[in-house]
């Protein structure tokens, strides 16, 4: 890397010279994202890893029900050139399958499990992506999908506290005060002896 090149420019060069970038966005000098085709994700992650982006920081998904797509987001980080690179790709929502990146980043094992649990994305190549990780005995569609209704689920599964329909009217407070005042005065008037 020449000194005149910023880290972000370096990443841009690296990514664009290797894969077809559909869309890119530079958040700031520490964060960029690139949208690539689904079948190029592994390739570009490999290249990034060899270039020093050795840390798999996060992997998750975004649900786009209108487009009928899930967007997978891979975030990798480099400790020498501090830039978070997000590699994003859109995959089919009806049958979400994405090959595991376990051979490249072993740390992605649990992220893939999490993503499978919350979005239902399948990761063939990861031997236990189907094991439960956070939710236990989940019995509904994956909860982070936009078409999942948490309120209905909560109503159905968890007993709700019943409240009676009687209210305390705020203005009564005044009359209470007045009553207290009257009582006080009466007590005062009944009190014998010296003032």
């Amino acid at each position, binding site marked *: 890397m020449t000194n005149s090149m910023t880290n972000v420019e370096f990443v841009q060069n690296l990514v664009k010279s290797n894969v077809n970038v559909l869309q890119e966005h530079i958040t700031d000098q520490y964060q960029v994202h690139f949208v690539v085709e689904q079948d190029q994700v592994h390739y570009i992650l490999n290249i990034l890893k060899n270039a020093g982006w050795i840390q798999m920081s996060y992997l998750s998904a975004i649900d786009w029900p209108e487009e009928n797509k899930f967007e997978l987001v891979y975030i990798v980080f480099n400790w020498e050139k501090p830039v978070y690179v997000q590699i994003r790709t859109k995959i089919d929502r009806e049958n979400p399958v994405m090959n595991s990146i376990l051979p490249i980043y072993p740390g992605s094992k649990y992220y893939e499990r999490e993503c499978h649990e919350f979005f239902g994305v399948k990761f063939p190549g990861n031997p236990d992506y189907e094991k439960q990780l956070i939710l*236990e005995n989940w019995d509904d569609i994956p*909860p982070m999908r936009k078409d999942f209704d948490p*309120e209905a689920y*909560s109503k159905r599964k968890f007993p*709700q506290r019943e409240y009676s329909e009687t209210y305390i009217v705020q203005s009564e407070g005044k009359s209470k005060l007045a009553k207290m005042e009257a009582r006080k005065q009466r007590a005062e008037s009944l009190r014998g002896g010296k003032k």
Partner: protein
Amino acid sequence: MKSTKFTPERNISKAETDRKWWEIGDFFRRNSLWLLMYCTGCCAIELPPAMTSAYDMERLGMGPMATPRQADILLVSGYLSLKTLRRLIYTYEQMSEPRYVVALGSCPINGGIYHDSHAVINQLDQYVPVDVYVAGCMPNTEAVMNGFVDLMEQIKNKSANGWKKYHDNYEWYRQNQIQSLGEVDVHDEFHD
């Protein structure tokens, strides 16, 4: 067998003796309550001031305890997710009797700000009996301390009967637990 020394005739019934011993026990219990802090939610942040010199719960004889076997109070501070509830029930059943439950915050009362969450239960007393609720999101420390004093008062009046209720209505509690949790037993990589 009669001792050779003079023993006054005892005409106190067994129930009466038990009651007296319970009274004595309750006196000591309420003046040395040990907390098992199950800090599930953000309400737990009210405990440091309650325990340290600002409010100093030690002056009420209260202190933290590390194991459920020796604790008197199960303190649930804040929201409970399903996963935590399973462990909470485990913990509750491990505690020796008499055991009391204090719940902080509006989350265990009616779900609080998590009332529509898929992960958080709405009403704790459906699953384990709760003796004292301290309302607020989060309740301030005076309220928390007041909650403990209320519990002592309840023990004195013999109205802190949550653990007896759990015995008597075990089936009902169990049914609620199963309805929300599916299965109470924990199955995960660390237990199997």
